[in-house]
């Protein structure tokens, strides 16, 4: 009796899981299939599958209008995202090292400040930052992305790496320190290899967030030849002309494809990253 009920429970469980799963992926699948559809198929047609499987929308969408192809926007996106990610991870790891292993006057206070900035909402600093970058002549360059990354303005990642470092026994690096290594060499040769998984997680998240970021690109980047994907897509739907939704969906799909691939390849790190950073909070 109990066994049968258990089985029934299990079946219901699987049905619920599958049903929610369909809801979760349906929009993404729809986006992919819409790339093959005409406008009239997208609106007012019930069929999920397109009438024909011509890749025209991908080709035409990729070419964009005239001078710049989506390839250009991809390069721009990576020009923003890759350095930003590397800078963030590097600088945050060093700062975390400073907090985790050294005692210096004012440390408690500074750490409290760091934690406080975790809660600092972005909206409140956007406007002065914008005017500041304007004074520096950094508008329409990628410096507004690079410099905050170099200066470790992401307390979340510092905190995440710090927590991880606290889990590494002090003896390990202290024994290196005894051999007369400088602190930086100690960090490089002992801590850095151990920190790699955590840095990788932090890097993945920074990659993801910068890749998806719209607001900063919107206010800092003006000229089309510097547009990242987000702005290019936004421009495509604002076009004066008759919007070919198939092409836009094709490019939207292509633009999220790197994320999907990245996620499938590095799934473990994503999950670990979220789980650990969240738990320690």
């Amino acid at each position, binding site marked *: 009796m109990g066994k049968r009920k258990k089985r029934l429970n299990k079946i219901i469980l699987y049905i619920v899981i599958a049903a929610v799963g369909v809801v979760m992926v349906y929009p993404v699948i729809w986006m992919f299939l819409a790339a093959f559809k005409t406008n009239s198929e997208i609106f007012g047609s019930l069929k999920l599958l397109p009438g024909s499987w011509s890749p025209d929308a991908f080709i035409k969408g990729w070419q964009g209008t005239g001078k710049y192809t989506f*390839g250009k926007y991809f390069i721009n996106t990576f020009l923003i995202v890759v350095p930003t990610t590397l800078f963030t991870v590097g600088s945050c790891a060093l700062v975390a090292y400073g907090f985790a292993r050294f005692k210096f006057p004012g440390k408690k206070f500074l750490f409290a400040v760091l934690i406080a900035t975790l809660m600092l909402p972005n909206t409140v600093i956007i406007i002065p930052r914008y005017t500041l970058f304007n004074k520096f002549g950094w508008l329409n360059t990628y410096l507004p992305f690079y410099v905050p990354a170099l200066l470790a303005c992401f307390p979340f990642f510092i905190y995440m790496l710090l927590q991880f470092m606290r889990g590494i026994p002090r003896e390990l690096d202290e024994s290196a320190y005894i051999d007369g290594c400088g602190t930086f060499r100690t960090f490089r040769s002992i801590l850095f290899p151990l920190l790699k998984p955590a840095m990788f997680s932090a890097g993945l998240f920074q990659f993801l967030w910068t890749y998806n970021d719209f607001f900063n690109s919107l*206010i800092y980047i*003006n*000229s089309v030849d510097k547009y990242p994907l987000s702005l290019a897509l936004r421009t495509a739907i604002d076009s004066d002309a008759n919007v070919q939704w198939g092409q836009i969906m094709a490019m939207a799909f292509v633009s999220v494809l790197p994320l999907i691939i990245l996620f499938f390849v590095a799934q473990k790190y994503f999950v670990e990253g979220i789980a650990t950073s969240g738990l320690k909070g």
Partner: protein
Amino acid sequence: MKKKSVMAASLAVMLAGSVFMGGAGSVAKAADSAEDKEPVTLRFSWWGGDERNEATLQVIDNFEKEYPWITIEPEFGGDQGYLEKLSTSLAGGQAADIIQNGPGWMPSFMSKGDFFIDFNEYKDNIDLSGFSEEYLENTCTYNDKLVGLPSGIGTTALLVNKTLADEIGLDFSGDVTWEGLTEMGKKVQEYNSDMYLLNIDTSFLVTNVFRPYIMQITGTPFVNDETKSLSCSEEELTQVLSYIRSLYDDRVVQPAGETASFEGAPQTNPKWINGECVAVMTNASQINNLTSANEDAEYMVVSMPEMQDKEAQKNEGYYANPPQLMCVNKSSEHIEEAVMFLDYFFNNEEAAAILKDLRSVPPTESARQICEEKGLISSLVTTAVNLGLEKNGINEMGLTTDSEVEAVIKTMIESVSFGESTPEEACESGIDMLENILSEK
């Protein structure tokens, strides 16, 4: 460990892939310039649809062939968000050298700073004789400075899907009046309750119904730029809003809830594409976009609506205005070259034939002739412009077209069109907001 290297490899492939694919565009640029000239690079920003973009790029290509030491980097996109980009880049000193500008935005730019050159100072580099002096004076001159050149002659007109109008039995042969629109709208609804007379959303109601209507009953633009106050009374404002409300109540226009998702782009309205809307009020420069959205139908252009009671009407409410202005950035390092490009853009025969009517009917005599000879301008656009040129409305570019004022007008229209407030309520809170805004100008 293994996973990580796979990860790294896939990242590398992605990067390489995008570099490879994107590289194609920039390789072609062989920047060998003429012997004795320093190479010059200019940036040109504009908004437009595909056709306009392609034609403009073609003109740029031709220009570069003729002036090989000048390279022009195009920057183009949609019209929405263009103003924000332009303002931020002007403020930050990052704006393009050659700028397509909205005539309605000019007054506000002019009050904020000195951003654009006076073309009168560069007459050696550009031939302005093709433009009508009066038109330049009326539409592009501020404080005696010619800060822009009109991209074309633009007017608003009513574009009618003739096929559908005939099917329903609507008669557009006489003068169209506001009251007549309501009657026609009811007829359309009787014919098929899924169809509407007008393809219009709340932001086009501002420019194509609200402002002309106000001008017709008051004879002046909505805001008086001198006194920085509203030029109409509360009753007059309520009257317009009531009329707009009645358009929704009588289902003359498609419900605001349906048009919200393609606001600002009537050519993407499925009802228009499927031939379920009879007419659209549009600027002449947009006619080609609208007709190509549904090529199965036959179209005609008629005059915009006016008051039935001609006695009550102070003026006709419509006027010719450039759809865009072409400006040159004052802080550009190569002003002369930028002006030279505009000279080519406006006066070169080949350029005229390429640009056709994509920014409405060309502004210069010579370009108009070329286009007419070659039959490059659609008769719809010509009719629209000719009808519009006869109207005696007053140019209202100024505080009336200020983006904050426009936003309040839109708020009033939305609150009546969604039925959330009565015209009286909307009028009252709108006046409050407008007085606040105007007091700070």
